[in-house]
């Protein structure tokens, strides 16, 4: 996973609520067995069917921060949604509320999710609609979103922040504790099922 410290870019306003992961990337793109190259599936139905969809507008073509309505990333657990956003050039998604699995996946894939109060999201929407070239900085070190003369703090737990700042992979961190895992395993009740062998 790439480390995330701070990112400055332009932002696209996605004025929709409850954007589900089927919209971020539909099922037909999930047949691939690679971990990259999902940009063609990103919001493909809206990009195809709605000429005035925000990401079809040239002024937002280079946006690297997505500012979405509440409840972003509901539905399917597909991490492909995170990969598609990353492949499509996004490093950050801002929303007033994320679905849990999407948010959790993002901490593993290196996409930063930032929760801001809806009023701050609305203010940001207004600013980037008035001037799509507005530079927006998301600073994970300082836990702060900055644009124009506005600075908004955001919350992130220290452990996740540390992992993202260092770009650390969870499996490696857990492997430091395999002795604890073995001790736990030794005490599991014998009647718990095993998938192998089939009786």
């Amino acid at each position, binding site marked *: 996973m790439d480390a995330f410290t701070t990112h400055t870019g332009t932002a696209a306003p996605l004025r929709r609520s409850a954007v589900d992961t089927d919209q971020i990337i539909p099922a037909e793109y999930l047949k691939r067995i690679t971990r990259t190259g999902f940009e063609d599936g990103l919001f493909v139905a809206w990009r195809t069917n709605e000429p005035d969809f925000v990401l079809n507008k040239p002024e937002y073509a280079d946006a690297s921060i997505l500012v979405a309505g509440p409840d972003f990333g509901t539905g399917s657990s597909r*991490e492909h949604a995170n990969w598609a956003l990353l492949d499509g050039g996004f490093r950050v998604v801002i929303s007033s509320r994320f679905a849990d*699995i999407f948010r*959790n996946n993002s901490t593993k894939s290196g996409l930063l999710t930032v929760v801001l109060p809806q009023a701050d999201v609305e203010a940001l929407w207004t600013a980037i609609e008035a001037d799509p070239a507005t530079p927006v900085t998301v600073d994970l070190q300082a836990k702060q979103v900055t644009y124009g003369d506005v600075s908004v703090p955001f919350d992130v737990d220290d452990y996740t922040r540390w992992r993202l700042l260092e770009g650390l992979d969870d499996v490696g961190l857990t492997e430091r504790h395999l002795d604890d895992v073995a001790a736990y395993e030794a005490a599991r009740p014998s009647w718990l099922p095993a998938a192998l062998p089939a009786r």
Partner: protein
Amino acid sequence: MPKTLAEKVYDAHVVRSTAGEPDLLYIDLHLVHEVTSPQAFDGLRAAGRTVRRPDLTMATEDHNVPTLDILSPIADPVSRAQVDALRRNAVEFGIRLAPMGDRDQGIVHVIGPQLGLTQPGMTIVCGDSHTSTHGAFGALAFGIGTSEVEHVLATQTLPQYRPKQMSVTVEGELAPGVSAKDVILAVIAQIGTNGAAGHVIEYRGSAIEALSMEARMTICNMSIEAGAKAGLIAPDQTTFDFLQGRPHAPEGADWEAAVEHWRTLRTDDGAVFDREVTLDASTLTPFVTWGTNPGQGLPIDGVVPDPAQFADESERRAAEQALAYMGLTPGTPLREIKVDTVFLGSCTNGRIEDLRTAATFLQGKRIDPDTRMLVVPGSVGVKLQAEAEGLDKVFTEAGAEWRGAGCSMCLGMNPDQLQPGERSASTSNRNFQGRQGKGGRTHLVSPSVAAATALTGRLTAPADLIGA
């Protein structure tokens, strides 16, 4: 300190807990399917890692599998490559796989309970959001992403933060023709598609206790549609009776020891929930969705809502977008909505009881001539059982199509898809735009409503058929 059921299961699986870090949680069972696993296995290979506990891991093929001609190779080369990747990975890493054609094959959330692998008090994960289904047994079961699949394969654990606790209490008796599906659609309509974010829901109350295991699975299945991390129900005699004698259920003295432990898996008196919701079962009627998320649902007696009625601006905009996509006009009675396809199946409602229920309505009748009905059992086991009971004949004689087992039109990764503009009544769990095929329009319904709708070609409540 008194604990909730979910807290008891969580605490019993903490391998390591340190201030300022997530807990490390042990995973008792890891279910795997072809869609969310290939990149995880690639990750293991790239790092030179193995699967720590292949004996606690079980794989099957479900999302991509065709439901016709199931013994031939998959025609779509991309789907075939994905299934082939799972087969190679299962061999390389020593994992049991139930492939197409195997008698244990089926939707991952149908086969776990069917084999008796899903048991009370366990932690169960799968790279699939509907893993919450297994909570019906009093297990803590939740969906994970592909990076976490890799983590569980490598370590049999997951870093976790303690979830918040929520109760949904349903008291009273359901009216005839009203089912578990209607209960959960009503819950989601009440709290919203992300209303339970960060929480584990425990479903309780007399109406829940009266439900069969199949019905409990329907309810827990759709917990994720309310945004919950998981949903669970305390195990009881209904649970034990369902499990006893299944291939992976404990036997003899082990069974006695297990049941003794399982009986302790109840929320203590005085345990605190962060949020509590209650529902009166007797007031519920069949529920159908009108929009493009599972929270946009209403009793079937209602009419398509007018977006102007929504006070909240983002809800109003969502309703406008949904109605435009669904091709619906405010004020239209839901019963007048004409349906092209009825889909009976999925991990929500593709179990034997669901098929039996639908068959009671179709017995000796013909479905509407302009309506297509697809019946897709959730697993090969369900298919064989239904055929032994003659249900396949009931469906085919009524004019429905009887198919092989898999996810099928729940998400259309196989050839079973809606055409653009086509409208379905579906017993699955998601009515998202394009979920059942590009441009397809989905109304979520119960198996009884699905069967009644197939007979009339319009959204229909079971009670409407009486005297018809």
